[in-house]
């Protein structure tokens, strides 16, 4: 008995329990979806799910880093929107401008993340309000930049990063997989990753044990914004047009995916694999609503219900003492 309890305790400590639970839900959801809709298991539909999940997965992975170190970033959706309009305008339909345009949005993302991170870690501002201010500013910047009507200059070559196929699988899935592997390695196998968990567990103890906490926190926000930019690039490539509101709502879905995946709000515990499960749970549910061809109002209602219920059932309290 006690051996089992100890084992369960270890599972709980490593955070595998919650991520495992998310995978259990994912598998049962998959089975239910296959039964409920005959089109679900269609190869094209499954690839579609992957294509839809890719941007959300990437932005949720970035969000995981920030939540693990005890923060939150609600500006990611606005950063994604800004990315789509800026990359499209800077590209202007010219294939030789693809790389410079991508560099420009990555630099913008880095600046936004840096501003968030420095304010939160050095000045000590509240992460939610700080990134909310960033959301308002970035959203306004996208509107001012485009004067409300974004130009559409995405080249066909650029669109290949989402629509191109390798072995019959969309390129965006490879991008998401690569980002997942990178974040998994960074969080699980490097000192930087351990420090992120440590800061989320106890900021002061981490500082006192000699880690440069402010620097690491800042790097988390920069990474999160950069990944939001990458997600925005994939999103632009997928939908093929620039939109001022393209990314709005992604912050909610990304945070929900992270929490459903078993990462504790408040930091310190969680795994990137759980986040992927959370993303797939959300995307499959949205896909199911689509397949059952429910009207868009019902889709909004279902989206809200899924997020509230998922987060309410799966949220864990942060590590003890906070």
């Amino acid at each position: 008995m006690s051996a089992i309890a100890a084992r369960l305790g270890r599972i709980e400590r490593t955070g595998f329990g919650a991520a495992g639970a998310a995978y259990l839900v994912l598998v049962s959801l998959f089975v239910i979806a296959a039964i409920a809709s005959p089109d679900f298991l269609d190869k094209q539909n499954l690839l579609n799910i992957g294509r839809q999940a890719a941007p959300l997965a990437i932005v949720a992975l970035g969000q995981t880093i920030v939540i693990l170190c005890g923060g939150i970033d609600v500006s990611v959706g606005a950063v994604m929107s800004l990315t789509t309009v800026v990359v499209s305008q800077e590209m202007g339909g010219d294939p030789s401008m693809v790389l410079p345009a991508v560099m420009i949005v990555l630099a913008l993302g880095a600046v936004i993340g840096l501003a968030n991170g420095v304010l939160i870690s050095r000045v000590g501002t509240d992460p939610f309000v700080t990134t909310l201010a960033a959301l308002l500013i970035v959203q306004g910047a996208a509107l001012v930049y485009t004067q409300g009507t974004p130009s559409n200059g995405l080249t066909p070559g650029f669109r290949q990063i989402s629509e191109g196929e390798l072995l019959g699988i969309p390129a965006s899935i490879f991008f998401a997989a690569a980002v997942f592997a990178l974040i998994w390695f960074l969080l699980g196998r490097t000192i930087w990753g351990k420090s992120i968990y440590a800061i989320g567990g106890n900021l002061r103890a981490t500082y006192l044990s000699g880690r440069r906490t402010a620097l690491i926190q800042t790097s988390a926000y920069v990474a999160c914004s950069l990944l939001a930019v990458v997600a925005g690039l994939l999103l632009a490539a997928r939908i093929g047009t620039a939109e001022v509101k393209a990314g709005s709502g992604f912050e909610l879905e990304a945070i929900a995916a992270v929490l459903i995946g078993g990462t504790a709000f408040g930091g310190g515990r969680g795994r990137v694999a759980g986040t992927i499960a959370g993303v797939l749970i959300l995307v499959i549910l949205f896909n199911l609503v689509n397949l059952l061809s429910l009207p868009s109002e019902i889709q909004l209602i279902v989206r809200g219900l899924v997020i509230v219920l998922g987060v309410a059932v799966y949220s864990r309290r942060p590590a003890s003492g906070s």
Partner: protein
Amino acid sequence: MSAPRSVSKAVRLHRASNRWLGPLWVWAVLLVLVIVAIYTVPEFASIDNAKNILRQAVPLAIVTIGQTAVIVLGGIDLSVAAVLALGNTLSMGLMDGGEGSMLLAILLPLLAGLLVGTINGLVVARTAAPAFIVTLGAASVVQGIVFWYTSSGPYGSPSLSFGELGFKEYGPLPALVVFFIPLLVAGLIVQNRTRTGRHIYAVGDDDRVAERAGVHVARVKVGVYALSGVLAALAGIAVATRTGSGDPLAGVGFDWDSVAAAVIGGAVLVGGRGTIGGAMAGVLIIAVIDNAMTLKDVSAFWQSTVKGVIVLVAVIIAALAAKDVLRTYLRRGPMSNFKHPPPAGSASKGGAGA
């Protein structure tokens, strides 16, 4: 233990003004803004425009009273925009130009707001789900219901006497403002002079301690979210006095604006701090800026950015004030705040958890 009455008169006056008015620097900022607007925007300085600003500020002020209570509690309510739209369209749909169903058209929307707020409160109080996710999810659900109810178009219309309310004046004040004043006074009294008010601060400061001190934490949380829902629906009805019909998008912007107003007014998202008085200064700051920018013909595209900058400035000032950073920085260097870390769970932890 020193007796509280040994506190000097000046200190007591300062505390009282903080409780009833909020931080004085926020009112100073409002004053500076008004002066700048008077000198840079020619049409700004007129009695009619002042009335206009007040009239337009009332719906946001109503929502912000509820939002401030929720934030003081350590939570956040991002469903207010959708609930406002629900109150607005439901009220106009029930009224539909007729005088007969007036009472029903006001009571039912308030009940709907109460229901949404209560559900928010129950989920937040009973699970570990962060408040902003719960209320954003609720916003999605409620907005979906509003779109479904109105078929995404203008819906219903106010009765004649109700429509006049938006433009009527009692003495020098617009009718909406006159109706709002008792609500504000009630809010201030609850905040400062009742046990419930103290309980909200206690729960926001540390809900475990509050629980042990005998506060019924879950009940307080549910009550405050319910209040926020009712007030949002009421604001929807107030918005309807100025428009010819119900609008499924009537709430757009009220969620972030109300949070911004509360934060500008000195509320802190981890809870325990914030006042209705300060939040009202925040509402007026937002209203004055919106008004001046519209009069000055500044593109609406800039308004989001300007609000973001104001929120940013407010949160930086709040952080500096909380840590007394300037003084300690000069004495000890940049990381000195770790000498006196904030209590567990605050400052660098994400707010809006309760």
